[in-house]
């Protein structure tokens, strides 16, 4: 007699797999951390996404704040230049993806990362231009991101970011 495993994993049985959606849409925030990466975000934002929002921290503002878990009040901006409060954006997000260019200084990563940590939001960081930057320059950027990203990806092509966002249902 055919085993359960043999029958259940057959191609014929695959037509009985439940076809209902098995997940709800995710809230994904894509934050570019430096000026060279802004153009990437602008191009990506032209494509169709499942509600992903694109923000920039290249003109990141932060002011010290006492008596709160997060030591600073910080603002991002959307791609049209409107100011957005960091904690408001992170609140309710499922995933924050930070994008940086190799060799750039990305001090905002620490504050965004700390805020995500407090709010229990998963983080991923993508570094572009890893192939063309010097090891030293790349290391400098990675060192600023590493403590704050559960996953770090060094990619040579911008297309990989779009593929990654789609794969993560952004």
């Amino acid at each position, binding site marked *: 007699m*055919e*085993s*359960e*495993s*043999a029958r*259940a*994993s*057959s*191609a014929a*049985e*695959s037509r009985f*797999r439940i076809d209902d959606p*098995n*997940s709800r849409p995710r809230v994904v925030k894509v934050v570019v951390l430096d000026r060279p990466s802004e153009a990437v975000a602008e191009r990506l934002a032209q494509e169709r996404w499942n509600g992903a929002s694109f923000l920039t921290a290249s003109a990141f503002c932060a002011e010290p704040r006492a008596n709160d878990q997060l030591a600073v009040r910080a603002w991002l901006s959307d791609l049209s230049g409107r100011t957005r409060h960091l904690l408001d954006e992170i609140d309710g997000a499922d*995933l924050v993806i930070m994008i940086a260019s190799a060799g750039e200084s990305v001090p905002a990563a620490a504050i965004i990362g700390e805020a995500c940590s407090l709010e229990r939001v*998963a*983080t*991923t960081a993508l570094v572009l231009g*890893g*192939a063309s930057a010097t*090891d030293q320059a*790349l*290391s400098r950027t*990675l*060192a600023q991101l*590493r*403590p704050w*990203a*559960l*996953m*770090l*990806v*060094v*990619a*040579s*092509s911008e*297309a*990989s970011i779009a*593929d*990654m966002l*789609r*794969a*993560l*249902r952004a």
Partner: protein
Amino acid sequence: MLRKEQSELLTQTGPGTPAGRLFRSYWLPALLAAELPDNEGPPVRVKLLSERLLAFRDTQGCYGLIDEYCAHRGVSLWFGRNEESGLRCPYHGWKYDYTGQCIEVPSEPEESGFCTKIKLKSYPLVERGGVLWTYMGPPAKQPPLPEWEFALVPPGHSFTSKRLQECNWLQAMEGGIDSSHVSFLHRGELNSDPLFKGAQGNQYNLRDARPVFEVVESPGGLYVGARRNAEDGHYYWRITPWVMPSFTMIPPRGDHPVHGHFWIPIDDETCWTWSFDYHPTRPLTREEVQAMRDGKGIHVRYVPGTFRPLANKDNDYLIDRAAQKAGRTFSGVAGIAMQDASLQESMGPIVDRAKENLVSTDNGIIMARHRLLRAIRNLMEKDVEPPGVDVSHQRVRSAALILPPDRPFKDAGREALSVRPGVAHASV
């Protein structure tokens, strides 16, 4: 998730398909040399990339890999007689040499030269490191022979096996670059398997089930680094190289032999999982080889006379719920190889990637798909040689390292991630 058309592009490898053309750019492991041990021995049926072939070793020891069927009436040459420098069809005596050239058609006058007009499709078949490798692409683009380290170490330093896996190559391969499953699925084996146990690094694995990942592109594919906490603020790194289209090497543990895999499509619903172990600086011990033959580490025990694992879908992988309950195995299936294969096969012959819900820790898989799709596109549109064909891309190693927190694994491990003859793997 992956769109249906992207998934089909990656999973279909038959003749004329884009991913089939990608696979046909490389030397691929086709058989174990031990499957053709003798000149004039029995031929062996081989199916690769959805092509039915026959391998044999002629009177002079030349290896042939030819179309399985006689050009006359379509009889399988597996029934053929391997004699006097060729394989003779038992039906009407047509005879073929190791290149597939017909050299005799007994019914036709010899002087007619009829046999010179008959030639079966054939591919080169070359022995290296106990493996018979074939190249199934255009002869003009045949690359140099493969230079994977495990195939170049002295005899006695390596052990290679293969097993039938009853699912598409991609979902099997994706399991190999998914480092985050080790702390769950294989946790029982880290302390018990003779080819894994005893390494200091195992304790970091077991203590920290939530590694942090870094994925870096390499000339041939990717390095997937998994970082766990070690002592004094340092990190324990396990770095897995993936080289296109389907090679990975598992990071070492202590002085154990290092293991790795290839996944080679048989057709779109089955593949060969090739598993190798080697040590660059010493012969494998008798105990290690015996453990591998007994199905320990990444190897399996077989249904006698086949390469099908003894634990397979027809016997529910011999699942032992009591062992699962007691924590001796996490899934109830014994052995690292079948723990992986049972779950990958349970997805069905070709998993529906449109329904998956990937998370950040799956970025190694996401990047591998991206690189495969990019390579296929470049190959189809611009005839660009894919990564991994160049033998310099094959001279990679896995590594296990303890590093200070500010050192990127790729810089710190630059030497450790390259083949260094006579030097052992960097291991913890």
